């Protein structure tokens, strides 16, 4: 594995190895110990073309805990407005001789393009509406810690599936690991032919949640309402917001997940989001750091990648 650009195409054994490694880092993190020799002398750059404090912080912490030199580059629109292209940025990064490059971009496929041009290992930290692989890995790790497995579970992913890179990565990962995946949402937020990715589509929340082991909620962005994909947040919450009543049809010990940040009262009711009997939302954040440590560790060990060799 030279880069981590997507979950699609990853072998189940690779996913399992990453989760096992992440599990060991989760235990290490909880013990308060560090392992700073893993990435000592390596440079990790967080290249964020789109704001995301929590993902950036998670990667930053992961890199630092493994001993990397971490730089954050927020390439908001300023450089782009000055005419700098993504490939100019790639050329700059090559000159800086960075080893690991974490990329967040609002365009699907942008990390793939960068990966063709940079020498560093590229990690996709979310690209457009395409994929967000480390989010899917941390979701899987969280589920596995609670259920002890991933195969044979029924998982409902609810909300704005069409615009969600989190949904796509999760669908690929959970299918690869033998879960049964449902997507739930109004038809305007469900993309064409999503069934071909191996999911069952529900437009009724109660049917979609019936008997589910895990209910994964997605963030609904306000622009979806201004574009009339849904009439109002009030109507959305009525039919697709997760509250205790809708959750009651899922398994009694169903896990409630959310990639954050949450719109309370739009896609999720506060009482559910904060219910310790179901919600594992905080644990997802914790597992995020462990998963990113595992990914950085794994990529730094790939055969065609040796720190300092090209310097």
């Amino acid at each position: 594995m030279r880069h981590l650009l997507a979950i699609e195409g990853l072998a189940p054994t690779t996913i399992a190895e990453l989760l096992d490694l992440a599990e060991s880092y989760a235990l290490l993190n909880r013990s308060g110990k560090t392992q700073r020799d893993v990435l000592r002398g390596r440079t990790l750059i967080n290249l964020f073309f789109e704001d995301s404090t929590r993902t950036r912080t998670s990667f930053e912490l992961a890199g630092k805990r493994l001993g990397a030199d971490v730089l954050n580059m927020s390439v908001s629109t300023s450089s782009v407005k000055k005419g700098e292209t993504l490939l100019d940025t790639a050329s700059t990064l090559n000159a800086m001789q960075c080893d690991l490059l974490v990329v967040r971009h609002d365009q699907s496929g942008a990390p793939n393009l960068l990966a063709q041009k940079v020498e560093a290992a590229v990690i996709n930290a979310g690209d457009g509406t395409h994929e967000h692989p480390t989010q899917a890995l941390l979701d899987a790790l969280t589920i596995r810690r609670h259920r002890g497995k991933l195969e044979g579970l029924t998982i409902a992913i609810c909300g704005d599936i069409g615009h969600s890179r989190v949904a796509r990565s999760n669908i690929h990962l959970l299918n690869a690991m033998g879960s049964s995946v449902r997507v739930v949402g109004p038809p305007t937020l469900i993309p064409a032919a999503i069934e071909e990715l191996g999911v069952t589509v529900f437009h009724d929340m109660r049917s979609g949640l019936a008997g589910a082991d895990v209910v994964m909620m997605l963030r609904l962005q306000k622009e979806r309402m201004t574009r009339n994909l849904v009439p109002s947040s009030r109507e959305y919450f009525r039919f697709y917001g997760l509250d205790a009543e809708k959750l009651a049809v899922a398994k009694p010990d169903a896990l409630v997940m959310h990639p954050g940040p949450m719109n309370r009262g739009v896609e999720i009711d506060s009482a559910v989001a904060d219910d310790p009997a179901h919600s594992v939302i905080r644990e997802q954040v914790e597992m995020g750091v462990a998963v990113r440590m595992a990914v950085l560790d794994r990529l730094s060990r790939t055969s065609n990648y040796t720190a300092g060799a090209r310097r």
Partner: protein
Amino acid sequence: MDALVSTGLRDTLIAGARVIDPASSFDGVADVLIRGGLIADIGTGLAAEDAETIAADGAVLCPGLVDMRVELGEPGREYRETIASVARAAAAAGITTLVALPDSLPAIDDPALVRLLLARGEETGSVTILPYGAVTRGCAGEQLAELGLLHEAGAVGFTDAGRTIGPARMMRLALSYARGFGGLIIQHPEEPSLSEGGCATEGELATRMGLPAIPAAAEAIQVARDVALVRLTGGRIHFAHVSTAEAIELIRRAKAEGLAVTCDTAPPYFDLNEIAIGEFRTYAKLSPPLRTDADRRAVVAALVDGTIDAVASDHQPRDADDKRLPFAQASAGGAGLMTLLPITLAQFHGGAITLPRAIELLTAGPARVLGLTQGRMGKGSAADLCLFHPDRAWKIEAGRMPGKAQNTPFDGRAVEGRVLGTWKAGKRVFG
């Protein structure tokens, strides 16, 4: 005589070619004598003293190709392509007449610009450039351009190029007004409110790749509306680069009804399907986007049954900066001149169409749609000719094609069909 030789106008005898002229349904081995820029004779056993004799050795000789849809880059975007670079690429591709889209900078919405393009084509000495005029001023969709004056200046039809004439009232006006002088309106059929912001055909692949998508029905919806407006106005419409089964079926029915409806397609739509955009390959980002294989097969069927009148290159020159961007941000369009003939011939080699039909789609077909005298090779007509070997193989390689534009979706493809010589008004301009 020396003067004539120095200008390339020496008599030429192309001997022993398989001459295919779909306009006259001629297909047979013959000699062709070129004298004074015209076809002086076609027959067997021709001889002419002082003529340069070219042994065709069984290669095919046909009218110079007529490409009815080319973006020039000039004026305004010379970094993409210039008229001189287009002319070089056209000659190497066997194209002797090309029709230029009007969405340049400025747009071709003024008679003086039509005359300028005609003259610039003449200057190249190797290709006839016939301009389309804009339907609306600046191709902006708001105000009707001076269609009559553009027509008088030599515009062969009217289009807003890659922009759909969206409002029904504007299309009705254009069709009605142009009817007054027999003008043809060329439409880019994509219902704008459905296609806005999209860059791939809606379906499994676009969903998987997370790309903003356009439903295939956007094409059929536009065609259906415009056919209704043709019925209303009695005007003439031509649909450019049709790509979906549903739209083609609507056109088939409109033709059966006797309406003045024609259409063309471009090689990517009968040779490639949407899979070509996998791995976010921006060279395969086109407008309209590549479709499913079922749609591709419907395009092939329409080439066979005559629903599609012509194949155009749809040449859209783009440079690296236009294309080396994330997929949705990259510019749509592919270079098409060099691949026009071989990719069309692939349908012949694959057994879908005959060789004469392939050539008809590239010569008499587009000429008939636009009412041109080109695209035929009768005695006394201008000696615009293309000599090619249908079986000779070569590999399409971006970066090694003539012309500036290298953004071909067929990069790396092995093809059969090599141009050996191109003559423009009797002058050998390639080979």
